[in-house]
């Protein structure tokens, strides 16, 4: 199963990076959303995939009898999902605000903080 998931992760990452290299913020936002999912899938695959054996320790035992599904990646992914979702929400609002304040979603035209052709510092007085 792992190779299929690894391939899927690769496809997700490719799409995310392609979108994030765009200069339009709306595409970068979509890239961010896909990037978060790509990473979650990556962590899930790193934990190895095992089906239909819940990680429950039987009565009278200290450790599981045989191999069981790994519960830890799901805890990690849950954390990562919460964080990436809140980041996405923040960036979405920020982008909307940037669009309404600066009047563009083209990052090439966002030169308010770093104006083009700023004068060099004075050479003397």
């Amino acid at each position, binding site marked *: 199963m792992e190779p299929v998931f690894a391939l899927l992760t690769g496809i997700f990452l490719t799409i995310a990076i392609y979108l994030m290299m765009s200069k339009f913020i709306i595409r970068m936002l979509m890239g*961010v959303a896909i990037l978060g999912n790509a*990473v979650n899938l990556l*962590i899930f695959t790193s934990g190895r995939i095992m089906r239909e054996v819940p990680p429950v320790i039987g009565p009278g035992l200290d450790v599981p009898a045989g191999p069981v599904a790994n519960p830890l990646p799901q805890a990690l992914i849950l954390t990562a999902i919460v964080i990436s979702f809140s980041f996405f929400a923040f*960036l979405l609002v920020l982008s909307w605000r940037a669009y309404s304040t600066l009047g563009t979603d083209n990052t090439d035209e*966002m030169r308010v*903080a*770093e104006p083009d052709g700023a004068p*060099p510092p004075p050479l003397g007085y």
Partner: protein
Amino acid sequence: MAVSSPPVDLSAALVLEPVAALDWLVILPVAWCIGIGAVLMMVRHRTFLHPPIAVAALGVLAGFDATLLWHVAQNGPVTMVMGRWLPPFGIAFTVDLTGALFALIAAMVALAGAVAAVTDINDSGRRYGFYPFLMLLMAGVSGAFLTGDIFNLYVWFEVLLISSFGLLVLGAEREQIDGAVKYGFLNLVGTTLFLIATGYLYGIFGTLNMADIAAKAGPLRETAPLTTLVALFVFAFAMKAAAFPVNFWLPASYHTPRIVVSALFAGLLTKVGIYALIRVSVMLFPLERDDLSLVIAAVGALTMVTGALGALAQTDTRRLLGYLVISGIGSMLAGVALGGPGGIGGAVFYALHSMVVMTALYLAAGLAARLGGGFSLASLSGLYARHALFSALSLMLFFAVSGLPPFSGFWPKVMLVKAALDGGAGWLAAALLFTGFLTMIATGRLFLLAYWRPAAAAAPSGQAAVPATALLPLIVLTAVSVLIGLFPETLLGLVQQAALTLDEPSAYLHSVFPAGSAP
């Protein structure tokens, strides 16, 4: 009907004895900051309460961190596990000298920022939540310095990042929105790279506890692509620390927020990236760091020289300082690349010095703007005639950032240059000294134009009076820099001890696994 379960030996999974009283200090800085942040949110409409609560809380935080540093210096690394689960199953907070030193200086810098913010952040800034964000930022920063778990480190990175977003857009002017877009997207990519590297790390090791990773790295070297993994970590942390090819978010954003926010960012954020780089590359994967040392050294040299050249080209004083932050990161990377107690000690010492001095420099730029009416070198003038004490403090900071004696920047630079010469990397020593020279030119010209140049008659005049809350943090931070420069023995001893613990982490491992290695 009570079902009696068979007796279970809990000592195999849980820490059964109670935590020693002083060991609670390991978690206290984080819990304290989150708690006070919550209290500040509860009283968010009574903005007059915010400054006294936050300043007092950060003072207490500095006390906690100082006690923790004393405890660690006396007894070696200290570990506390969450939920009593034995490591590596529970999340462990492990503090060694490096983490305690960084946490203490960070708390001092935040305290100085909170005092300076009393006048710099107005009522509307407080209502938007400056002080709660500051406390949560400190929770993230302290957590990153104190944790002993890689995934937990990632979580603290995100905590401090989301707080820094809030601080960055405080006021929501056009410049800030523009800077925040670039800062937000690029930092998100940086932390996501960190998470990707952590995912691979988990796939290889099956553990996230740092001590466990350090212990298990040896046998895995034969089979696992550890150098690739470490390269990914170095790339992610270099992005967070603003190293040369991936640092464009810093000059785009650091000059846009309120000056106190810039000062806090300059002192805290990039240094967390450097700390994480030192922790992962030096302590966990020393052999892989050796493999990558030439790459890190080249990146460090390019970062410091391009940073200093960038500072020379700026007209805005805040942007000039932003490039000096980058230049300092280059020196720390040089230390990481050199390795050994000298190089690592130099990098740690430089980071501590840079936290104090860069924050003070941004605060000084804010005061200069208040006195002289702006941030542009084209118009800023006559500060020396206006306020001689402030000018003297600024000059000391300029010397400190350039690495001149007798200020705090001198000793780490000596350590780094000596480590470079001892390691046969003369070109790196030359880059370090050349950077100091360029920094001296940049700051010297700033002093010449803004302080010595007579005020033009038509120049916009700022307010003449300087409030005590604006001057006091500057005086204290400059005094810290001078004291470190004049009496470096104590800090030098601590830093060298910290570097030795990083280089040979057996004390760290023993603190996490007292009974030997992990199961």
